[in-house]
């Protein structure tokens, strides 16, 4: 059964300059216990999508369902029940822990908010600390007494203390020292195996994604341009944007030619997305049709789909015609 399903989810912000289409029609699903990676440039709407899933911002359009139940318009008690099932770890461990609270209070907060009996709290705190590899005495210290990596462990312990089904990881290791990134990643993977967690991993580091995720969704300017199983997507990227992203990953091989300059310019603004395909102003393979009509989603293989006119035999004769799903 699907754990989390997004159907045509959109989030538009009204600003004095106009309507910003930060997230514009996203359909995704996450199965229990799997890791879905969401990759894309800064400003493409990844973090907004995380906020929508966490219920921190209302949807403009679409539907989010959790275990089959529509949660996008829940308020009050129902919303609270759902919130215990979905937790989050954010990028900056210096911003995600209140500097004025002891670690014990930080960890107890979700439990008490959900009406846990005070007696069991201390035991749960100790268990959460041992899960992330911190000594029990950490509970009586303040966040500033820890290093960045230790703080991120505390943030993970807090996210796990309610025993959620899904954890949204918004760039969980990119603010950490390179030396402890692998450690943190292993910790996250061990916890996933131990507790059967599903992860939504938001990242821009493709090497990390290739290593950690079962499926990948590539986001560009508020839309998913390609998604599929990690191996398939890395071996046979279909969308020119995915191809360019993968080509830009540095390889530890001096003989490998550097593939830079595939795409030019900056991400267009979500205030006025380009006509037709949103990627067309930067696409090295742009055709006439790309400037006029938006491409449809084409299934190229099992669990692998992309939105590009190049995959459509109506525009590119001789292309193996995928199944157009609309």
């Amino acid at each position, binding site marked *: 059964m699907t754990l989390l399903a997004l159907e045509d989810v959109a989030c538009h912000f009204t600003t004095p300059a106009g309507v910003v289409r930060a997230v514009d029609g996203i359909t995704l699903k996450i199965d229990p216990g799997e890791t879905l990676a969401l990759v894309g440039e800064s400003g493409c709407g990844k973090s907004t999508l995380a906020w929508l899933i966490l219920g921190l911002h209302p949807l403009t359009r679409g539907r989010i369902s959790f275990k089959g139940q529509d949660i996008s318009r829940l308020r009050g008690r129902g919303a609270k029940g759902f919130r215990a099932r*979905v937790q989050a770890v954010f990028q900056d461990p210096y*911003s995600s822990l*209140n500097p004025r609270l002891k670690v014990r209070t930080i960890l107890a907060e979700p439990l008490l908010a959900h009406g846990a009996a005070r007696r069991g709290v201390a035991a749960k705190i100790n268990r959460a600390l041992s899960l992330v590899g911190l000594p029990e005495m950490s509970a009586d210290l303040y966040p500033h007494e820890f290093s960045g990596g230790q703080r991120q462990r505390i943030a993970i312990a807090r996210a796990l203390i309610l025993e959620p089904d899904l954890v949204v990881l918004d760039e969980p290791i990119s603010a950490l020292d390179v030396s402890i990134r692998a450690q943190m990643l292993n910790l996250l993977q061990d916890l996933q195996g131990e507790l059967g967690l599903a992860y939504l991993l938001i990242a821009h580091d493709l090497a990390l994604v290739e290593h950690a995720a079962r499926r990948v969704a590539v986001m560009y300017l508020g839309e998913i341009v390609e998604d599929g199983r990690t191996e398939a997507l890395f071996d046979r990227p279909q969308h020119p944007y995915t191809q360019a992203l993968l080509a830009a990953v540095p390889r530890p091989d001096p003989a490998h030619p550097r593939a830079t300059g595939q795409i030019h310019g900056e991400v267009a603004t979500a205030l006025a997305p380009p006509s037709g395909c949103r990627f067309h102003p930067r696409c090295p393979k742009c055709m006439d049709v790309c400037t006029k009509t938006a491409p449809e989603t084409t299934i190229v293989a099992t669990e692998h789909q992309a939105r590009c006119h190049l995959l459509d035999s109506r525009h590119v004769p001789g292309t193996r015609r995928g199944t157009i799903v609309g």
Partner: protein
Amino acid sequence: MAEALIPRAFVARLWARVFRRNRVSSGFPFVASGVLGLVLICALFGPWIAPYRATAISLADAMTPPAWMEGGSASHLLGTDNLGRDILSRIIAGARVSTTVAFYAIVLSGLIGAGLGMAAGYFGGVVDAVISRVIDTQMAVPSIPLAMLFAAVLPPGEAMVIFIIVLSYWTWYARIVRGEVMSLRERDFIALAKVAGVGTPTIFVRHLAPNLLNTLLVLATLQFGSVIVFEAGLSFLGLGIQPPQVSWGGMLSDGRNFIEVAWWLITIPGIAIMAACLASNLLGDWLRDTFDPLRRQVW
């Protein structure tokens, strides 16, 4: 010999530590806190310290100059006024009034201002627009005419003075707290508290308020002096503390008529007001520097 017992380098280091020579941040303001401590002691224990009752009239001793002047007497260290009342005792009694008024005024305006500022900064939108416009309007109204209006309508006394001061001072707290909360609200721990299912009242009490304490403490210390000057101004104009209650501003006002024959009648309360205000400003500056991690320096 003394040099051998106490190495000169040690003395120099101690000197530099205490007085923070050649540093951006200033050392602990001993003088300022001493002055404020003295004012507080006078306020708390005034009736037991003061040599005379503040209102004790002794016409035979009228206009005695301070003890160090010709014609002065050791029994009235700072001299007496036109009714023979002891100036030192009156300064001590005035400290009690000034401190009481300043304390209540700061606590009340702090609570009101911080509460409204937190609501404006956290909720934004319409709440922010309404509160901000009220603040702007309040700041545009000059406080002296407002004080005259309320002095005419309300029964005079300490409560009225406190009311007038709160009315013109809460806006400072509201403005500053609003700005702080607008930046705090973007911190991840606020979003994570919501993700954890924490309600809005708890977010205010547990996550916003403790992070505002430093700012409020600094602002309150800085305003202590300003409130004392404002209260003195009101009393000087006859809008504030009414005789026979003693206040520094009232002493200035009484002494004004005798400025040519007895300068000490206005100079001494004037020095008291200035010293208290300056001391609280210096202490407030030091607190601000100390709480600011960018300026904080390791000892």
